[in-house]
């Protein structure tokens, strides 16, 4: 009883975390658009396109619930085949959405005349690149 309650809590916690990562991704994108509209200096972080990937967990959960509900009797084989295709589509879609949205921000940056500054801040697992309309405004090292 205790174990299943703990499992359910962990599932809810991690799915909430996955949704939080997705919200964080879109919030960052919105923040970048606001910066493009209002500021001459925009900071871009590498790897943020992959923030949607944790959504695979709620998708896996939904798929397993659907399987338990609808995959019975004669429909089982057909349902499982369809589920396999859906899973592949979802994985590809999550990665693709992240990259497309990120690419949209980059193309807006280019359209607005932003250029990459020389200073790139390297952290252990990500890099931050500054974009500015006027290279004189670029931060120094």
């Amino acid at each position, binding site marked *: 009883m205790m174990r299943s309650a703990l*499992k359910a809590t*962990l*599932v809810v916690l*991690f799915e909430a*975390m*996955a949704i939080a*990562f997705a919200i*964080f991704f879109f919030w*960052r994108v919105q923040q970048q658009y606001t910066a493009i509209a209002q500021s001459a200096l925009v900071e871009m*972080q590498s*790897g*943020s396109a*992959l*923030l949607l*990937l*944790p*959504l*695979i*967990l709620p998708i*896996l*959960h939904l*798929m*397993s619930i659907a399987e338990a509900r609808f995959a019975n009797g004669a429909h089982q084989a057909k349902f499982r085949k369809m*589920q*396999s295709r859906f*899973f*592949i589509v979802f*994985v590809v879609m999550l990665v693709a959405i992240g990259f497309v949205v990120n690419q949209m921000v980059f193309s807006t940056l280019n359209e607005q005349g932003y250029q990459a500054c020389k200073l*790139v*801040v*390297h*952290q*252990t*697992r*990500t*890099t*931050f690149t500054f974009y500015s309309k006027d290279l004189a405004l670029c931060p120094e090292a």
Partner: protein
Amino acid sequence: MADNNIDISRMNSERKELHILSMEQFAEFATTLSSHTNMDNARFTAGIASQLSDVRLASQIIDELGLTGKAVIKEVNNRSYVVLKGYPGLREKLTGTRYLASNPKVVDLAIGHKRVGNAMAKGARLSIFIAVPMTVLQFLITEQSTLMRLVGTIATDLVKIGLSTLIASGAAMVAGTITTIAAGPIIAAVGFGIATAVTLEYLDRTFGVTDALVNAMEKAKQRTIGELARQIVTFERNFINDAVRRMQFR
């Protein structure tokens, strides 16, 4: 005699090389290294070593079982078995339908959330073993950096690597309980690991956690070792002044 032989063979098998450089030689080495390599990129690559190893593991499972290949963990007589669904003839390594969870083939492919957790820990160790020496080397060849910055950077890096590994392992465990898709736990772990790493780096940059830690350590050093050094200097100065005064009176 036999013991001596064992020791010599052990020493030979664990041979280490130590290179001692003069300051001039080291300066030359540092200049050559920084002009030929981008240490920031090298450190970044070292930092994502654990993610790269997770992705490699995921691709191995997908190669063997397919993206949606199913594996169920069953406990029979206190022994864990991995039961694989689908046609075994299509698989290259796992040609049976049921394996003990401790079977080397299953362990190698990290099927099941416990195995994924172990693989994550191995990946994190790999990241630490590569990223820490890279950070030390980068700080050695950078002119404007302090020992406290090196310690602070390594400390926050270790926390970030540890946290992302912990969350990735948790995600693998949760995925293992909600799905029978064999690649599910490792894909969830990769996704959560990367997302956590990116988020932690953003939080560190935004809130200046590493800088705050370095500043706190600098202040602590000033209050302890720095204060002690100042006291010693003051004592020495007073001692010399006293000695000079006594000499003058004579």
